């Protein structure tokens, strides 16, 4: 049984405030006198925002929506960790019981050249969409799909693909990576589709264009492994190796006819 109804007292929040993409930002300090430990981290920010409105000040802007750890909207750097201290947990699923009374909590936006700050803690992650647009799909126009049970897929393969497919596109991997690399995000999608029989036709053209689109925006991977540690879905960096392997195959093996579509 968790200690219900416990309260945390006098928390100090240092939150990054920035009016727009090109205006300079700074940390502002706020105090939370008391908050239930049942509250989620974002609900704690809600409480702060309600108070700011009451004081006729502008509330803190931050992306969030589902608050179930699945939509990937929430994106906060909490005390130097992407999504905060709890492993395999998105910011919105982080609860105050993970903190102590009297804590100082520093909140920053994701920082990457490809993720320009829109306002306060909100950043623009659309380069992820560009990566998907360049090949993160299986070309299967509506209609005319064969029966779903036509191709049996070994359970292990389906499960491995699912492990990769769990990515919620939050960008914590980029935020956490010392090199600002998007390898984990890209590898997750490449692996999800390249592991499945349906994905084979476009396997090599897919990895080629996705990796090269990724290159236009993000840094390179030197295998720090921070991304895996920050990933709310604990996606394994093994998939990065898988992506490297497929990319090299795509480049080195001569399959112009087969996959340079």
């Amino acid at each position, binding site marked *: 049984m968790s200690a219900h109804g416990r309260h945390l007292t006098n928390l100090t929040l*240092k939150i*990054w405030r920035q009016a727009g993409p090109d205006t300079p930002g700074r*940390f502002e300090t706020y105090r939370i006198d008391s908050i239930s430990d049942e509250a989620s981290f974002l609900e704690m920010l809600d409480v702060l925002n309600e108070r700011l409105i009451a004081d006729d000040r502008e509330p803190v802007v931050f992306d969030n929506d589902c608050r179930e750890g699945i939509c990937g909207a929430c994106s906060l*750097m909490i*005390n*130097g*960790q992407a999504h905060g201290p709890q492993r395999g947990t998105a910011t919105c699923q982080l609860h105050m019981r993970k903190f102590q009374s009297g804590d100082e909590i*520093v909140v*920053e936006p994701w*920082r*990457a*050249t*490809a*993720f*320009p700050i829109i306002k306060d803690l909100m950043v*623009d*992650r*659309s*380069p992820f*969409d*560009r990566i998907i*647009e*360049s*090949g993160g799909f299986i070309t299967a126009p509506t209609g005319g799909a064969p029966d779903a049970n036509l191709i049996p897929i070994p359970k292990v393969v389906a499960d491995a693909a699912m492990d990769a497919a769990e990515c919620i596109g939050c960008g914590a991997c980029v935020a*956490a990576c*010392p*090199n*600002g*690399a998007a390898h984990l995000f890209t590898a997750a999608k490449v692996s999800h589709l390249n592991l499945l029989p349906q994905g084979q036709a476009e396997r090599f053209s897919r990895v080629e*264009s996705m*990796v*090269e689109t990724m*290159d*236009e*925006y*993000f*840094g*390179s*991977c*030197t*295998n*720090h*492994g*921070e991304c*895996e*540690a*920050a990933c709310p879905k604990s996606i394994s*960096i*093994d998939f*990065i*190796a*898988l*992506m*490297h*392997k*497929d*990319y*090299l195959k795509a*480049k*080195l093996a001569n399959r112009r006819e087969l996959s340079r579509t």
Partner: protein
Amino acid sequence: MAQAVSTRGPVTGTATAKKRRKLFLLDLYSTAVGKKYAMAISGIALMGYVFAHLIGNLKMYLGPTEIDHYGEFLRELLVPLLPRTVTLWLLRLGLIAMAVLHIHAAYSLTILNRQARAVKYQSERDYQVANFASRTMRWTGIIVLLFLFWHLADFTWGWVNPHFVRGAVYRNVDASLSRVPVAALYIVANIALGVHLFHGAWSLFQSMGWNNPRFNRWRRGFAIGFASLIVVGNVSFPVAVLAGIVER
């Protein structure tokens, strides 16, 4: 480094531009993943050299004639098929090429990564798994590089070696390493190399895409083993010289 679209408006046709492809190896090397591949390959070659070099140097413990003879053997390689020292030179050229490739890739990736986060985090980062070795690759690498110059000037060209005698390997080593600061330099440099390899010899598996649940467990072990072998082996020489085990 491309920025995300901050000008507002609809997004469309982002994947229609046809990429112009270069000659395939250049094409590969032009991407970050390709460069990492180059780093891994060159890294492996350099590891191979350092390993072979260590084995060769161990002959030192078998006495002057052995090691000098070994040096001679290197110069005599594949004679008479090829003239004297030609093979050695080919090996050297290959080695130089690898080092240059490794360094160039390291350099350009470092630039890329700096640009990828133009504005740093304004609060302190709390790293979870990135270790000292992985975060200092550039610096340990550079230390090794600087060491290398001294090292060549010391044993190959003899510029910084008191009464250097070409070919008298044993004598040269003894002469140089009996100077405490030089010995210290060697020790520091080789520890740096060890740190570099502690990450590098693991990291290369990821970069090469060598990933298999069956042997993944061994990757870290291999890196530790290889790094410590090099460090222990190489550090033993200056120590041995100072301790007088290696003596004229």
